[in-house]
Each structure stands twice: as C-alpha cells, then as structure tokens.
C-alpha cells in the first residue's frame, strides 16, 4: 500500500477482492471468480455445478489440503510415510513439514499410528500410512 493511500488503510478490509481459481472437482475445470470481502464470499461465478461453488468458497476463504509426507524411523533406512488425518489449512503446510522433519519415531510403526499429534496446533493428527519394523 503506497503512502498516498495510507489514510484509507482502515477501509482496506472492506474492499472487495476478486480471486480466481481453476476448479479441480472434475475434469471440466471451471474458471471460478470469487469476490471476497471481510472473509465473506460476496459473489461466485464461473461454476457449472454446486461442487464448484463449494470448492470456490473453500479456496477463497480458507484453502485446505491433506498433507502427505515422510518421517524418519529410528534404526530404519526406509523412511516412514504419513498423512494428516484430515485436511489442514494450506498455509500451514511448510510449518507442518518442518515439524515432521524434526521428528524421529520409534519402530515398529503400524498403519494408523499417530506419529505427530495436533500438528501446528490444528487439532489434526498425522498418522502413519505404512508399516515400518
């Protein structure tokens, strides 16, 4: 924001922002245009079906992803693999990866074991997706 507009800073939160996404719900790939203001969706266009609306709203307000990655297992050359039990905010992925990188879990690891509880304070656990002896 340039100085010339600094007086309007208080109002900036109220300026509608248009965000554009390619819907990935199906191969049609609708180009969505979502107008957001104050964390609310004002307008959503471009979708061919209700799934597009749902996707566009989520992407505009708080994009979520399931994170899948690797985790060190003590004494094993093969890394363990893991995923978040549910999706987490996309912006937390780098932090979640850093937490996983700092971690070494004790063998044996079984599919479904919690390898990291409450990742980044999201309340979501990271669970193992393969057995490692």
């Amino acid at each position, binding site marked *: 924001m340039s100085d010339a507009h600094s007086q309007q800073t208080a109002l900036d939160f109220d300026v509608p922002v248009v965000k554009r*996404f*390619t819907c990935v719900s199906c*191969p049609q790939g609708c180009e969505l245009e979502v107008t957001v203001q104050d964390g609310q969706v004002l307008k959503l266009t471009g979708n*061919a079906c209700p799934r597009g609306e749902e996707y566009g709203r989520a992407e505009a307000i708080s994009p979520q992803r399931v994170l*899948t990655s690797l985790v060190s297992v003590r004494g094993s050359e093969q890394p363990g693999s893991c*995923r978040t039990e549910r999706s987490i905010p996309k912006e937390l992925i780098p932090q979640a990866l850093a937490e996983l990188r700092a971690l070494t879990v004790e063998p044996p690891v079984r*599919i479904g074991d919690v390898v990291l509880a409450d990742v980044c304070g999201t309340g979501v656990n990271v669970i193992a997706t*393969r057995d490692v002896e």
Partner: protein
Amino acid sequence: MSKHMKQIDIAVIGGGAAGLAAATATYDSGVSNVVVFDREEAPGGILKQCIHNGFGLHRFKEELTGPEYAAREFAALTQRGIAYVPEATVFQMESVSEGTRLSVLSPINGFEQVLAHAVVLAMGSRERTRGALRIPGTRPAGIYTAGAAQHLINLQGIMPGKEVVMLGSGDIGLIVARRLAYEGAHVKAVFNRSHISSGLRRNIVQCLDDYGIPLKLLHTVTSIYGSRRLEAVGVSEVDKATKRAIPGTEQIIPCDTLLLAVGLIPENDLARQAGVTLDPKSHGALVDERYQTSLPGVFSCGNVLHIHDLVDFVSEEGEAAGRAAAAYLGAPSSDAPAADTTEVLPGAGVSYVVPQRLSAQPNGKIPLRFRVRDVYRDLTICVSADGREVKRFRRAVAVPAEMQTVRLDGALLAGARTVEVSVNAQHEPAVQHDAPSKQPASCAKDQEVR
C-alpha cells in the same frame, strides 16, 4: 511332461493393484489353488511409492494413500490364504495342451516350472526413458524418470538432486514435483512438448500452482550438458503444427537433475514372447470382454493391458479378469477369441478401446474403456454396431488424461461384425500457452504412446 511339474489352477503374474484384486476375485469365485508371483519384495506394485492421497474413493469410499490402499488389498489376499511368492521372476510362458507352462525363478522356490490352468497377466507398466526420447548430449548422472526419483525419495529416503528441471507433465511427474518442493529442492520448471498436459488438472493445480512451479507448454529439452553430473539442459520452443523443436530458440537452464515424466508403456515382454497378440494402439494385449487374450486361458488386466489413471479402475478390471479366469476353469472349452467374433474399433476422436473383441455371446453390462484424442466439451459418445448407432452417451467434457468408460448391455452388441466407439463434438478452441496452468489437462500426442 506335466506330471513332473507343479500344477496350479490359476497363476497371477504381478502383485500390484491389478494382480492382488484378480487373485482375490478368483478365490471368491471358488478357485483356491491360486498363486501370485510378484517381482518385488513386497506387494502393492507402484502403490508402495505413491505416498500421496487420492486413492480408493470409488473402491473404499474414502481417500487413502497408495501404501494404505496396497495394505488393504494384500490383507484381503492373506485373509483368504492365497499364496504370494515375492521376488519371483516369470521369465518364460508357453501355451501347452493342458494350460500354460511358466518358468519361474524366486529365492523361496529356486527355479521351478509351473503348469497353470489359467493365467492372469498383471505385470503393470514401465516409464518411457531418455533413450526412448532420443535426447542428444552427454550422459551425466542426474537424469531420472519421475518414477525412479519417486522410488528414491519415498522408499529409500534419498534426494535425487537440488536444482530440478522436469520434462513432461504426466501425473507421476507432477506428484514428484510437489514432493521435491516439500523436501526443499528447487523445481525450476516443468516443460511439456505438446500444447496440452497429459496430467490431471487436479494435479497441475495442487502440485504445480500451489508451489509456484511454472508449466511451460510447447517446450522440450534439446540438449544435455555436463560430464560427471548434469550441469544444464537446453530447452527449445516447439512448433505446434510440426511438433518439432524450433532451431535458434534454445535457452540454457542450469540444473543438477532432469526428471522425465513422459508416459508409461505396458510391460508386455513376457506376453509378446508367449505369442499373445498385442494392440499397437494401447500397447497391451488384445482382449475380449472377459479380458481373455488371444491365448486360451490367458487373461490380462491393469496397466499391462492399458494405462490407467485411477487405481480404483485397475482393481475393478483385475476383479473382472480374475472372475473370468475362474469361470474359464469351470468351462475350459469356452473358446478363445476367434475370427468370427465382434471387433471393437476406435472411431473418430478415440485413440483406443478395451476390449478390442467381443465373444459370440457377451453377457451382462459390458464396460468399454477408451481414451479420447483431444479435449472435447459437450460431447456425445456414440457406440455403433455394423454402422448403426446402438447407444449414445452425453458428457460435459472429456480429456485424454482421463480414461472414459461407457457401459452397455452385451445383448445390444451380440452378433455384430464390428462395434465402433466415436466422439461427436467441437474441438476445444486452441488454448493460449501464456497461461499454462489454466490449460485443460490432456495431451493427445503423448496419449497415443502411453
């Protein structure tokens, strides 16, 4: 001869998604003497290294990672007590009067010859390599197929490099690009020879766009630099019409790693050597609606039959092939595809169809699986028999990256000499290549060789 040989009812060659589903289905159809021969140390095939999610939405009604999907499939096998032989190489297959003779080498059984009354081929596929692309230049370390890099990272915990360029935007490559970004590598760009990507749109958005990795369409690697280790690649623009690199457009991009994600080829060396007739379009066996090949009692399913994009459909196909193999044992006289059966042909806009033949009496709902050649919107898929339309299906969109399936009553097609599957639609207007991430996910040219 056969009295000295171990006899089994059904041999399944391959322990990936297709083979595991086929073996389970043969057992559930009443055949218990089934053996799965797997080349690898552990079951699951390529699923083992696919640690990302997105598997199983159709089959298990939940989203799993590859290793989880594989574990479920293998659990079904072990619950039934089906024999699984790891690290087994079937290096010869021969049709004999009593069935099929397999020559197998494995640490557990050493060398053995097995007489199987029916065989399910489920050997999967291989990646196209630099050799297949004929990229000129030196031969330094640092050039991998995307799947090899995925194996290094996810199963061996080894990073293939730090500064990475990718050629081709097949799904494995897109997934690996994100994995590399997660692990701290710098993926400089993904170059794609065609004007449309062969990867699924979801993967382009979630693996490239999310991490700011540019996708450059109509570009290809034309030079390799470096002696011991890769130092740079030369990338040229590609003429959309001629599909050739444009001289004088090469730019040098420093990198230590080049990954190739340029398509998969069904691995049919064993089938070819045994005399199984292959379809030059799908690169897999020519099969009828029971997934039976040109050799009686030999069935084919999964990526060795044709390249799939969803494992759920691989499992479905494996089950169907397994059931058919079990049914063949019950009535081995049921004839192999003969000259007087129905021929299924790809028509306008369709690159191949599986099955390529129908038996004299196709029963029940027959799935016809195929790929389209280009991006189509508001299309009609027409199935005709001897030139007369028997059924049409409407679709909002079809892209080469996604396998299409239509299902219709076998009775509608019975007795026809030829059945044709074709697409009626307007082509997608030529896409602008300055906004690559917005491209529809497809690549007609790559698809033909996949």
